[in-house]
């Protein structure tokens, strides 16, 4: 029995877009960031919440309980090269639980992905590497002011940790939310391109902004974030991709 408990706000089985193959994505509640485009406001606070609708966001589960769900799709992981993805919130914010869950999955031979923004001390992140097969690493903004304004934290730690992970030989898939009129600026695209050139084996997913989960903000009684943006037109998305490709980041693709 592994009775370390975490607060989980969702488990999505049959997830097809959270790493290789068919996966089970476990969403851990709580995040030190407050990204202006956040689609999952229920992921931000650490405690379970009850929405105005009566809907409950978050429940305490042990590693054993989560693994009992994860294990059910083992045959689909085997057939597809899939496995477990831990997402959030920022999953490393529930560090002990996250770490134990990764280890438990690996212990059963289940492939793991960790969806992280990398905002934690390097030694703690480094320690997770043993049980993470692929990092889905969020790269949110480049300029310090923009990063602070859009996420609420300084970029130093996440940016440095990304380089450290890559230097340590971890498999990283860079996930780049691109928000028109917010972070989708030339300096940011240049920085992504530079990363792509430096690490040609690293996959880069561009994730153009889509409509926000406004209903969930309302249900939680929280103001919708003040973000002046829009859904990018197809031409705009294609132009970002072009910019990256011509700047030498051939691996960039729409995620």
């Amino acid at each position: 029995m592994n009775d370390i408990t975490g607060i989980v706000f969702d488990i999505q089985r049959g997830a097809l877009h959270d790493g290789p193959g068919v996966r089970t994505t476990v969403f851990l509640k709580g995040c030190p960031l407050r990204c202006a485009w956040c689609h999952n406001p229920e992921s931000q606070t650490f405690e379970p919440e009850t929405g105005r609708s009566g809907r409950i966001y978050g429940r305490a589960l042990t590693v054993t309980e989560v693994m009992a769900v994860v294990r059910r799709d083992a045959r689909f992981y085997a057939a597809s090269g899939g496995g477990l993805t831990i997402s959030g919130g920022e999953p490393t914010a529930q560090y002990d639980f996250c770490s134990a869950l990764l280890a438990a999955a690996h212990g059963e031979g289940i492939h793991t992905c960790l969806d992280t923004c990398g905002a934690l001390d390097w030694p703690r992140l480094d320690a997770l590497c043993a049980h993470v097969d692929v990092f889905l690493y969020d790269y949110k903004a480049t300029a310090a002011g923009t990063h602070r304004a859009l996420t609420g934290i300084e970029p130093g730690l996440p940016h440095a940790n990304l380089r450290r992970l890559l230097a340590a030989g971890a498999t990283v898939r860079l996930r780049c939310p691109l928000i028109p009129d917010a972070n989708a600026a030339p300096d940011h695209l240049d920085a992504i391109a530079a990363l792509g050139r430096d690490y040609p084996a690293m996959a880069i997913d561009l994730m153009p902004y889509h409509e926000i989960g406004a209903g969930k903000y309302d249900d939680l009684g929280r103001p919708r974030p003040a973000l002046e943006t829009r859904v990018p037109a197809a031409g705009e998305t294609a132009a970002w991709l072009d910019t990256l490709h011509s700047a030498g980041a051939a691996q960039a693709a729409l995620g």
Partner: protein
Amino acid sequence: MKTLTELNLEAALAAHDPLARERAITTAYRAHENASPAVRELAVLAVQFPAILEPIEEGDLFAGRIRYPLVSFGPEPGGLGYACRAEAIRYVVAGRGLDQEACAEAEEMIAYWETRATAARTRAAYPPALAAALPSDDWTRESGAGFPLYRMAGTVLDYRKLLQLGLSGLDAEIALRAAGASSAQRDFLDGLRAALGLAAASLRHYAAQARSLAADCGDPSHVAGLSTIAADCDAVSQRAPATFREALQLAWIYALLSGTWNYGRVDDWLGSFLVADLDAGRLDEEQATQLLCGWWRLMKAYDNQFNNRVFIGGRGRVNEAVADRFAMLAMEATRRTRLNQPQLSLRFHADQNPALMARALDVIGEGCTFPILYNDDVNIPAVARAFGVPEDEAVHYTPYGCGEYVLANRSVGTPNGVVNLLKCLELALRDGHDPVARRQAGPRTDDSSFACFEELWRAYAAQLEHLIAALARQEKIAYDVTGREAPFLFLSVLYDDCIARAKPLFAGGVRHLGGTLETYGNINTADALFAIERIVFQERAATLSQLIAALDGDFSGPDGEALRQRLLAVPKYGNDDDAADAMARRVHDHVCILTREQAARVGLDSYLVVVINNSANTLFGHTTAASADGRRHGQPLANANNPAPGADRGGVTAFLNSLVKIDPGLHAGAVQNMKFSRALFTRHRTKLEALLAGYWAAGGAQAMISVVSRDDLESALREPEKWGHLLVRVGGFSVRFIDLPSDIQLEVLGRTLHE
């Protein structure tokens, strides 16, 4: 979309003498009322054929169209056996403003058939207790837990034998059997031979018609086609077919004459003709594909909804490599014609040429809804267990119609009863009283003050037992009456072991006399029982009488809605929740075993549940009160073994895991609808393949896959004129989405889309 029935009615309305054929058939029957069944049937068939064969139309690549008159003989298309569609006749009389004399004549004809139609004779043969248990036949409109159906559906003939021997070879075989037969046997065997003569005459009729059309036709490209049809029809009226075209022509005409509209393992019986022509250079693949497209179009003209099953692939075909070549072209024909017919279906197994499945996924991914997929590695052992036959017989399993299995040319298994399980639970909660019909509809099983869940279960089981015992008896009576009425000569010629036994199909001829029972609402019943167990008996959050009051009030008022939310929050089947799924399995096992046990009691070789779907889940929904799974009064029932619409929220793998918990070895066919996004078939194809591979490996027996997006469906609702190409799988049939009635459109839209 017009059904066959509606089209036939239109044809009658438009005819010069609209009831001439009906009168002629009635006269023939009347003149032979006391003759032997074989002689009487022949007399009627001789009036019917070739009279009801419709002319070759421009662009037809083969001869063979049919319109059933409103009085007819056949196993199913025009009704059961000798059938008279009284309401339709009155509609025609009124619609054409026929004079009083014609009107009186029509009424006299209707009155004549009232006691002689095979369906009427079947109902008349019910003992009083059975008639009381099954008071109504009007299942589409009246509220009720179970109804009889009248038909001999799902016969699948031995086309291989037809094509190998030809009409003349079959005649010779029967003549040989007739030597030394008793006089009663001879009467039947002579009938078979005469029926073959009618088949030859029908072919000659089409040959003459094609020649005459060719002579009148100014367009040389049409002349060539018509001349070929004429030559083919002439040839196979005299000898066994020698080419692919001849083989297809003969099989098609024979199918039309016999009243069958499911064709079994077509790649197995037609593949060798195709490959011989391809190898000899008589045809190339493009020409062959076009011929199949032509056949597909004729099938759609025959039945445009529930039938026309064409099987390809699977174990037990004589020459897999040859059959596979046919299979690939068949999939191409389906891709090109993009019709909802035929219901092309692929059987597959672990050792099969993987090109077939790969091609199948391509075609499905384009939104064709076909082929429907059947996993032999699961189905063959399951059929062996369910039917009680060895695997070398089970290998011939052939789904027909909406997905009921028969053993091709070895068994019959017409579904002649429908049961609404959710209505049985509704009755059990109310001591047998139907709150929609407002009458005592089932046995009094309890005063409804159940002290524990098992008492409620027993009441539910008692309602079901009462009904299924009645429907099993009814099924056997339908066979007995039909068997006495007519030998069904065309069917008997090509069904094991009618010739050897010298007995008609439904009178001792068939090797395996099976029956099937369509059950609906299985999953709602399981979800409702599970919710009652949780809320009423475990959590005690509501009493049973509070629950029943809320159901009777359709969850109206704040208390009703609050209880509904509690019921909805209880786990549902389809999410890989072991407890919820265990209840689904319990309901399934119970009704399947209960049904199976009736066979020996009533004298059938098997009597099995089929968990199929046509639009019955929606129609039964109309007459079923609110239920404890949270479903409101009138809403559709979940289709077949699928989760209730929107109830499967646990992800596609959880959905698939739930499906495989239902034992396929207890029934004669169940269908699984799946709705996937197009992106899964394009950008994420390997993931899709992995999902299906996991499902098959875990025991998945069947899948019917619609590829759509929610946007597509919503756009089609708004602008139907632009979405004529959008095919969806409703249940046991595919249809253009825009042709569906709006309530069924919404039901399809409500199903979970996996993307």
